[in-house]
């Protein structure tokens, strides 16, 4: 099913809660705004966040003649989304599954979803380097154009886990497009004093250390947080924010990659 996808982008991080889902959704939304056809696959089975962030909770998946039809965000069908969240009866239902069951679900997501022609398929992952990640790598092996974006926060404790994820990517042979540092500083709304709550610069120095491109720094911006649950792109709603600039730049370089015939 993935032959018609021009480029697969995996959003990874060893650590949880650093903003993988926020980055995945904003990346997909920005790509869509720039006119690309995008798919977003959420393989976090125990904690799917994408349906909530994109305001698609309660939508359901239909079976078409060629496979599962993803949920589309827009009537023009430029952004298709697939997540286990669409298959649960209630939003509070827990998916209590061991590895093998998770692996077969992910395999189905990769093989049975009818994405049609896509420019980009963004895959949002759970934290760690275990079943989900091994399965997705194994199944993406025949796919030619596949790269990873790593998300981290500036704290040492997050960077420590992201270093493990870099090792994982190198071992499994997936090229790393670069590192994004999220939650860098917080500007106090009343005095505009910037506090580096989770310290700063960690992502940049990690990129230097691992000799990887640094894709940008996303500050803690409550305006971006408020977009969660509404499915709106930061580039359109808050175009002057540094978040939109970072995503704009990433998407421009991705677009260049695509027009160069990969």
């Amino acid at each position, binding site marked *: 099913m993935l032959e018609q996808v021009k480029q697969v982008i995996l959003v990874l991080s*060893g*650590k*949880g*809660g*650093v903003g993988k889902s926020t980055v995945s959704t904003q990346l997909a939304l920005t790509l869509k705004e720039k006119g690309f056809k995008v798919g977003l696959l959420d393989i976090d089975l*125990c*904690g799917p*966040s994408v349906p*909530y*962030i994109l305001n698609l909770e309660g939508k359901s998946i239909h079976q078409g003649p060629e496979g599962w039809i993803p949920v589309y965000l827009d009537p023009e069908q430029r952004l298709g989304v697939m997540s286990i969240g669409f298959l649960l009866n209630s*939003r*509070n*239902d*827990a*998916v*209590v*599954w*061991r*590895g*093998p069951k*998770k*692996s077969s679900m992910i395999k189905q997501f990769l093989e049975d979803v009818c994405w049609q022609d896509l420019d980009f398929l963004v895959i949002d992952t*759970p*934290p*760690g*380097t*275990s*079943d989900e*990640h*091994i399965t997705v790598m194994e199944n993406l092996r025949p796919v030619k154009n596949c790269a990873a974006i790593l998300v981290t*926060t500036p*704290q*040492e*404790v*997050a960077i*420590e*886990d992201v*270093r*493990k*994820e*870099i*090792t*994982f990517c190198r*071992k*499994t042979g997936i090229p790393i497009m670069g590192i994004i540092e999220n939650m860098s500083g*917080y500007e*106090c*709304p*009343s*005095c505009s*004093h910037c*506090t580096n*709550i*989770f*310290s700063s610069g960690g992502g940049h120095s990690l990129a230097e250390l691992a000799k990887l491109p640094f894709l940008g720094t996303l500050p803690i911006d*409550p305006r971006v*947080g*408020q977009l*969660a*649950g509404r499915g709106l792109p930061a580039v359109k709603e808050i175009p002057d924010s540094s978040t939109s600039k970072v995503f704009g730049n990433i998407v421009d370089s991705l677009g260049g990659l695509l027009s160069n015939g990969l």
Partner: protein
Amino acid sequence: MSNVPENAPHHCPGTQSEDAGKVSACAGCPNQNICASGLPSGPDPAIEIIRNRLSNVKHKILILSGKGGVGKSTVTSLLGHGLAAKNPDINIGILDADICGPSQPRVLGVRGEQVHNSGSGWSPVYVKDNLSLMSIGFLLGSPDDAVIWRGPKKNGMIKQFLSEVDWGDLDYLLIDTPPGTSDEHLSLVQYLCGAGVSGAVVVTTPQEVALLDVRKEIHFCRKVALPVIGVIENMSLFVCPNCHSRSEIFPATTGGAVQMCTEMDVRMLGALPLDPLLARCCDAGDDFTAQLPHSPAVQQLRLIVDSIIAVCEESST
């Protein structure tokens, strides 16, 4: 005979019988080899071993959250320090069950220490006289080493941690877990069913995107009959160090943990504010409770520790 499967051949001697897999009726049965090997008998023997090993541990507490990065490891270490400081005569152990992303060695400031093996088992690393830690982080050669394991291997490691660590006499064993509701969590609950778990402390942050996963975790606890001691809300309010005004970085659009606790009928243990110094202490491995004993976070923590002790004491009597 009760242990004859419904779809077994006629004259099946029963799977638990001495003759299982050996009598003539077994010829041609697809499960003959399994029966003959004598494997499928009874519950996992590890449960009994773990029960014996942990018989000197009074209270076993799991620290859970469906969501990653909400502060499970930070809260675990704070509870560990808080309990240890409260009374020098009680002993606390921390087991880091996050196999793919172990954070405890850094947060507790014991990175690079070695775990020693002796006749009585693996000796944990001592952070203080009465606070010890076991983590896979101690077994890795370099901080870049990734543990790329599927479920069964992770389960094996957890089984070893539970059955082979020589904790000595402990009053509290705090088990820090990875995010999710999968292998690690199921295995912990399963292996500890003989030894008995006091309950789970669930950590969350105020935003809906975290609460969404935390509700799933509470459902998981209900499914596996694990009592929930209570919920701790982390990163609640941010106090600007410059102008001391309060702001919500992660706004509780759906009422935060308080609302969730009422909805799901669980106890709210308290809320810890977001303190940049706390994040820094975690990175440096310093004991935040000793460094800033008068900060609002530590004062809140004391109250939380007291209510956890109260719940544990109550349930054991």
